[in-house]
């Protein structure tokens, strides 16, 4: 049985006489032990979907089974079996109290999940070991580094050993080193305990490096789903960029006439950009064509498509463009999400 199965999950918000559909019917299926990434630009419905799946927001339509419990009929059952680590940057932070001690946060969280005192202490020892938090028990949360605090927040989501954990933007705001360190911890969750991980992210390289499968959401619907490789293969072929010495128009005509070349565009800096199937194999014959025609080149570059290219193709927008506004993404009551969604619909 799938650990997450959602059908037609939708949420509309009413704000000032307007009704805004933030999520318009999302179907999701996540299998046990998967690491799944949920990608989408701000206001696409990412956070709203996550908040519905974690029982923080009631769906206006649809149904879902999360970790074996019915989302609508048994929200408490869902809460018992999932871990949730909120986004750490935005209107609200990641869930730790700056004035509390590290040990206190872990033990209180265990008590909230109704673990016995002995079990709470056992979990605290295990988690501080797993997440490199040893020796920090007596420290106030506000004295932790950004990476330590984030790891503590993740530990809080794991206190009750949930089979499924939701991570909302787990590495946003962390430096590259802490980020790759956290990736290791997330991978270890799955390999060590078989925990299913559902994460949202702004970083395509994160989804690429970490996730078995990716869902792309835009305007409140899932527009693409698959492994990162599958998605990348959907973009026709590879990208070859080349700079020729003069005779650019002639080179363009020659290359466009080749069967293996999908299309040719001239970019702003005068380079020719080719979409080519099996770029590596195609390169020699392309070079021969230009050489035979007497066109000389001074540079050539072959690149595999990235998830960003996929994103651009699927949504018509680059994910990178709006990462600057990531700070406004978090929407505890969903109202901003609705506003953003509305703005997205107009653009």
């Amino acid at each position, binding site marked *: 049985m799938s650990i997450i199965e959602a059908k037609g999950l939708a949420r509309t918000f009413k704000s000032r006489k307007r009704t805004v559909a933030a999520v318009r019917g999302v179907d999701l299926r996540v299998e046990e032990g998967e690491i799944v990434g949920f990608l989408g630009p701000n206001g696409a419905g990412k956070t709203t979907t996550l908040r519905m799946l974690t029982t*923080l927001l009631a769906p206006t339509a649809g149904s879902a089974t999360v970790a074996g419990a019915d989302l609508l009929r048994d929200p408490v059952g869902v*809460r018992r079996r999932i871990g*949730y680590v*909120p986004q750490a940057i935005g209107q*609200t932070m990641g*869930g730790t*109290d700056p004035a509390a001690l590290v040990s206190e946060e872990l033990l209180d969280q265990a008590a*909230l*999940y109704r673990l016995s005192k002995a079990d709470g202490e056992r979990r605290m020892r295990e988690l501080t070991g797993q997440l490199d938090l040893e020796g920090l028990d007596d420290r106030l949360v506000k004295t932790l580094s950004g990476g330590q605090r984030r790891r503590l927040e993740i530990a809080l989501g794991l206190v009750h050993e949930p089979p499924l954990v939701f991570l909302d933007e787990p590495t946003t705001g962390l430096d590259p080193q802490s980020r790759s360190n956290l990736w290791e911890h997330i991978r270890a969750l799955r390999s060590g305990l078989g925990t299913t991980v559902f994460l949202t992210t702004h970083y395509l390289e994160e989804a690429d490096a970490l996730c078995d499968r990716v869902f792309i959401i835009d305007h409140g619907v899932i527009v693409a789903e698959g492994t990162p490789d599958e998605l990348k293969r959907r973009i026709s072929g590879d990208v070859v960029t080349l700079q020729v010495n003069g005779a650019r128009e002639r080179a363009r005509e020659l290359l466009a006439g080749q069967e293996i070349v999908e299309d040719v565009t001239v970019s702003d800096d005068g380079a020719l950009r080719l979409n080519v199937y099996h770029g590596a194999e195609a390169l020699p014959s392309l070079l021969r064509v230009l050489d035979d025609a007497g066109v000389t080149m001074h540079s050539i570059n072959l690149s595999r498509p990235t998830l960003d290219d996929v994103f651009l193709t699927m949504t018509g927008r680059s994910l990178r463009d709006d990462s600057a506004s990531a700070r406004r993404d978090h929407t505890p009551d969903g109202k901003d999400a609705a506003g953003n969604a509305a703005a997205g619909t107009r653009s």
Partner: protein
Amino acid sequence: MSFVHDTLTVFKRQLRLSLRNPAWVIIALMQPILYLVLFGPLLTKLPAQSLGGSGTSGSTVEAYKFFVPGLLIQLGLFGSTFVGFAIISDWRAGVIERYRVTPVSRLAIMGGRVLRDVLVLMVQAVILVLVALAFGLRAPVTAVLIGLGFIVLVAVGLASVSYATALLVKSEDAFAPMLNSVVLPLVLLSGIMLPLTLAPGWLQGIARISPFRYIIDAMREGFKGHFANTIMLEGVLVAAGLALVCLWLGSRVFVRENA
């Protein structure tokens, strides 16, 4: 029972956090103590009859029998309505959301905090009474206990509403002026500083809408040694009704969205 367990879990955590910064408990006590020390003596010069006393026990005792119940209510009013500020910073830290994803009873998120607030207020109220005794208050022990009981009811109600309101507005900038515009008129219309019998008829009429006016009157009756009369009954009913209505309003906010 899980609700009791959850409430105690939240209560213990909040109490631990409060005790880590006990300075706030003392700072909150400064206001009523200052009133007691710097304002109370003024009342001892007023004729005992104007404070509702019989004039048999000397003006100082009469003054404090009048003034201390007022100060206790003032302590309760300020102490419990300002608790909302703390939950705004908790909300901003993501702590409230973190709780809401656990199986913890959502009522306990409020209940545990209210319990902590009541305990803190009790400690403050006892200190205030002890200081007042040193200044010349003489009142039956039963009256003091009844007074503390009233403070508990007031605190339960007002703290619940304060948390709920703060969680709805989610902004200190909006919450502070809201508080001021509600608490100040309530204090003025309750006859905390001076008896409302000094007020002109129209003001006495308006003062009837303040529930605290009935509660203070009942407490003062107790301090005078009168426990079984309609003033006392009115006070108890108003205090209990206020606590229940406020508790209901507060819990509605905490359990809404997928209870």
